[in-house]
């Protein structure tokens, strides 16, 4: 049966909000099947996807299915093969699964999708491209059409109160797919400041030079009555804690004021903060993408501008 399938990512009993957003959006166009894979999945929990628009949930439950992508491609592939479209919300695992499936099926894939239609006339997908300076609409020359959404492109709001019919399917996992193994996890720290609650955020990226300059940023945040935040690059580099991170794999924030210091404004960062009230960007690279969506762009060295700005704010 030609069908629309949404791959629903989940972690510790919570569905990925990007998956839910895509599911809810897809259900506006017709019947949608959700696909959930993992180990020890509860039918009642999976049926809850009905509230986000799923009419049916396929559950692949096997000890080999965890948070590594390749076995998930094995599990999804037999069901995806005959689908009209297979949709994925943004996410680290979802992106790997979508890409693996594209290769496995020789299927076309649209990434960073912010809108799509699935109908009798085929599947279309729209994405912003070239630093969000253009919108590109694509069609697909074969099915299934694979769509991997941009982070936060679709709100994860319930669209009904129904529960979906759950159907268990048995995956077949290949040897090479399970060669990689998860040997450890470092959880994001759960204590401390919740940056999503702050009215003012002063965020920094590699443009501030090094972790020794974080106090300069902290002083500006204090002068503005806000908190500090960071990019993925500086978190990955170990300058600061993961809980400070804004962006695709970090937090989504919408403070009244967002001051970006030494941040280029890559898409992965932008999707986490673009809905902030007022965005001020300080960056010495005049070509930095962040200037395209900042309300005030200051072309200058953040390490020079920030202390002067702190001083000026304090002397008011």
């Amino acid at each position, binding site marked *: 049966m030609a069908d629309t399938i949404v791959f629903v990512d989940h972690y*510790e009993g919570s569905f990925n909000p990007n998956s839910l957003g895509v599911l809810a959006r897809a259900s506006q166009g017709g019947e949608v099947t959700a696909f959930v894979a993992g180990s020890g999945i509860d039918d009642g929990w999976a049926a809850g996807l009905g509230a986000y628009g799923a009419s049916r949930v396929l559950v692949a439950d096997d000890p080999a299915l965890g*948070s590594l992508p*390749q076995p998930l491609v094995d599990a999804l592939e037999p069901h995806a093969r005959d689908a009209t479209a297979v949709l994925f919300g943004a996410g*680290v*695992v979802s*992106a*790997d699964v*979508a*890409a*693996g499936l*594209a*290769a496995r099926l020789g*299927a*076309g*894939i649209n*990434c*960073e999708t912010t809108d799509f239609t699935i109908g009798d006339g085929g599947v279309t997908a729209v994405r912003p*491209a*070239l*630093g969000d*300076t253009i*919108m590109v609409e*694509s*069609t697909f020359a*074969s099915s299934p059409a694979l769509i991997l959404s941009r982070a936060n492109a679709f709100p994860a709001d319930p669209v009904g109160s129904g529960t979906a019919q759950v159907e268990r399917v048995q995956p077949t996992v290949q040897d*090479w797919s399970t*060669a*990689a193994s*998860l*040997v450890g*996890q*470092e*959880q*994001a720290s759960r204590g401390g400041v919740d940056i999503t609650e702050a009215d*003012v955020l002063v965020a920094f990226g590699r443009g501030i030079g090094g972790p020794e300059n974080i106090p300069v940023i902290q002083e500006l945040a204090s002068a*503005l009555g806000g908190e500090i935040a960071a990019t993925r*690059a500086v978190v*990955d*580099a170990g300058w600061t804690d*993961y809980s400070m991170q804004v962006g695709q794999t970090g937090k989504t924030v919408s403070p009244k*004021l967002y001051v970006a210091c030494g941040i280029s404004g890559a*898409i992965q960062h932008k999707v986490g903060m673009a809905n902030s009230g007022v*965005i*001020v960007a*300080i960056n010495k690279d005049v*070509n930095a993408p962040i*200037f395209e*969506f*900042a*309300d*005030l*762009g*200051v072309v*200058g*060295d953040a390490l020079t*501008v920030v202390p*002067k*700005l702190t001083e*000026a704010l304090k002397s*008011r």
Partner: protein
Amino acid sequence: MNIAVCVKEVPSATSAKRIDPSTNRLDRSGDSELNPFDVHGLEEAIKLREAGHDVGEIVALCMGREQAQRPLQKALALGADRAVLVTDEALAGSDITGTAYALAQALEKQNTDLVILGQQAADADCYVMAAAVADHMRRPLVTQVAELSLEGSTLRAKRQTEHGYDVIEAPLPAVISVSDAINTPRLPSIKAIMGAKKKPTDVVSAADAGIDSSLVGAAGAKSVVASVSPPPAKDSGQRIEDSGGDSATAIVQFLSERGVI
């Protein structure tokens, strides 16, 4: 152990980017450069060699147009031992699916234990190529690696997820993509730039690389650009040039006008 690093020629950061309306493809007539994300892949390969691992050969592999030889020279200057450029009119206009297939076929011709890609291309902003290549090659995969180490023929990689960090082990041969935070790439020395000219670049056709032409190029693309349009209109922001911190007063005034201080 041999390492292949996939590299891409992209329009340089400073060149204006546009879609050619006659082809609906990216206009590549301006200045180009080595995809900055791929430089981290090259650096990581060199670091593995410097860490004392038995790295026989580092090959930079590129699928692109003839002109990609110039950014490939930079890959050689940065430390690749040789380069392979897969170039063919039949490959022009390939989508993600076709490109992944073509790269995998070309990589199968190289005797590599570890394939490294950058996390994304600066011109396409997707981050899916490594996972697609790994599936074609039926090799274990770790994407967005922020820390990499090797023990014997097993790699250990730390990568960020939405929930913190995963530590993943995988046996070689494997495919990984690296985060741009994994290292700080060095600048090539003048000596290395001169030396790069003596390093070999193999220019191969699609057929040489074992690529079925019907699966690649614009004709083989499964994702087809239908139209290009301007984004929704947005008020353009103000811009000020700072000199020695003299913008502070103007910033305070702006914040005050917007009612956020």
